[in-house]
């Protein structure tokens, strides 16, 4: 099974990625209220990442094992950050109160 020869839509993906990248930069100049800006920027980044992963890296053709290899580290990343937030991110602020 050849991941690289399966219907070469590399050009389409490339154009989409460039547009998304420029839109992301533009979005950072919009001064949206509060955290919406962060969600928008990282939402766009996630879309770019999924495009690269599924199209360029061939993730859509891979089996459960490779999906697991990608998803489990992301879960671990989430665990690390969320469990450390009370200690590293918010604790100093709590102390000030």
């Amino acid at each position, binding site marked *: 099974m050849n991941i690289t020869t399966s219907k070469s839509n590399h050009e389409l993906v490339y154009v989409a990625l460039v547009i998304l990248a420029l839109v992301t930069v533009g979005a950072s100049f919009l001064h949206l209220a509060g955290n919406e800006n962060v969600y928008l920027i990282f939402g766009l980044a996630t879309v770019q990442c999924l495009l690269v992963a599924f199209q360029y890296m061939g993730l859509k053709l891979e089996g459960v094992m490779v999906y697991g290899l990608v998803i489990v580290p992301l879960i*671990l990343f989430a665990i690390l950050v969320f*469990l*450390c937030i009370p200690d590293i991110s918010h604790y100093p602020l709590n102390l000030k109160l």
Partner: protein
Amino acid sequence: MSQEHHQGFFTKYIFSTDHKMVAKQFLLLALSMAVIGGFYAFLIRWELAYPNQPAPFFGVVTPDKYNAIITLHGTIMLFFVGMPLLNAFPSNFLVPLMIGARDMAFPRLNMASFWMTLLAAGLLVSSFFVPGGPVAGGWTGYAPLSASSEYTGVKMGMVLWIISLALVFIASSLGGINYLVTVVTMRAKGMTYSRVPITVWFLLAAALTFFLAVGPVLAGAFMLLMDNVFGTGFFLPGKGGEPLLWQHLFWFFGHPEVYVLFFPTLGFCLDIFAVFCRKPIFGQKLIIGSTVVAIALSFVVWAHHMFQTGMNPTLVTPFAITTILISVPFAIIYVCMFLTIRNGSISLEPPMLWALGFLATFLVGGLTGIFLGAAGADIYLHGTYFVVAHFHYTMFPSVFFGGYAAVNYWYPKMFGRMLNRTAATIHFVLTFIFFNCVFWPLFIVGMGGMVRRIADPSFYPQYSPFVHLNIFATISAMCLIATQTIFLWNFFYSMKNGKVAELNPYHANTLEWLAQSPPPHGNWGPKLPVVTSGPYEYSKPGETEDWHTQAPSYKGEVIHG
């Protein structure tokens, strides 16, 4: 594909890509570093029993030297003895043989893995001789002590330690890639996943756990390196940093790491129990399921090492709960091990003795962990010798009882000779006795309040009741270390002078016993073995033999050369 290469000395022994030779290289590295680590253990115990008196072969162990010695003892024993002995050596030797492959998926990567580890060991040893001396921040390298040389006076030694660890972590990850890809893609015909021996499963579980856990500590290592070399402030409060972040990153790895060292021994013991009790493993699926649960849980228990650090108290209860929870899958595995032995026809050969010894001693380690995981009790016990005794009752059995079990069991296959059984038995009995004599008293002094990582107990009048226990532990430690010479003698002497081993001296089912002793380059004859049954068909009712090899059709043609 024809295999015609005549191997010169360098290709065969030094720059070998053959997985068996790489395995032996790792084993030799582990044994050599164990001598150094053991010498440091002697110095530590000497200073604790006879403070400020010159130690034989060393001189006075001053407090700053003591700090360096405890750091190096921990680092060496865990990463340069434990991991090579329990992960690199067995995975390299056993995985291709047990699944019926000719070598690893990536043999040159395998060789690179060893040389990287050797380089890392060399860097660490070289740090003994640099200005400022070797690393002295504890094997856990807590910041800010480790982040700036102004606190320990050690600069180059710390940098070398960080680089050495980064190298050994990367080398181990590369090894893990090899083992995983090999098992997934190179199993012999008929070797379905359910017929793979449990030793291989546990070695894989260890490799998987390792490379998933090592990322954050590598990240932390880069940050620590920058703090030391470029004056950044990742972990220095004076520069806006956060010391506890290092601890979170370190222990996020550190806790799964102890399971990386524990899983292989579980695998060896289960296979050894099956063979020496002539019984299938009890509850194989239950064991594998429990292992998966344990691995998942192992990633959410890390802060139990940090209960007393001043971290956000909100985190304490959740981590205490997960810590207590993780004892459940391990308890299940333990019960399965007991039920495997029950009603078996037990023969007390040395591998079985080591496996039984592991069961007994690790039980103490596991149970005492519960006290430490209960955050309330930990308030008193943290930082005392209770912790030291706990982790030696888990790590020593895992690394040494498990390592000796593996070496004793597979020695005939590795070298074609048997170890001297009398010497091996005496080695076990003495090690078991002296090990308990060293570390049991440490529970007592720990509960009495004696704290760890101090060089001179006589400085503190409240520790004077413990003088006799400390001296007893030290003398036992010296005897324990001396006993290991029996093993070293046996190991090297029997290579040339031991009784010639038959192909399958223990009548075991697994594939590696079908190969020659030692297996030639390429492992099998022209035809690979074809597997027709699982590995645990011992004492099957209705059969004449009490064992049933996994590939009965394999003839084992002798290869000329």
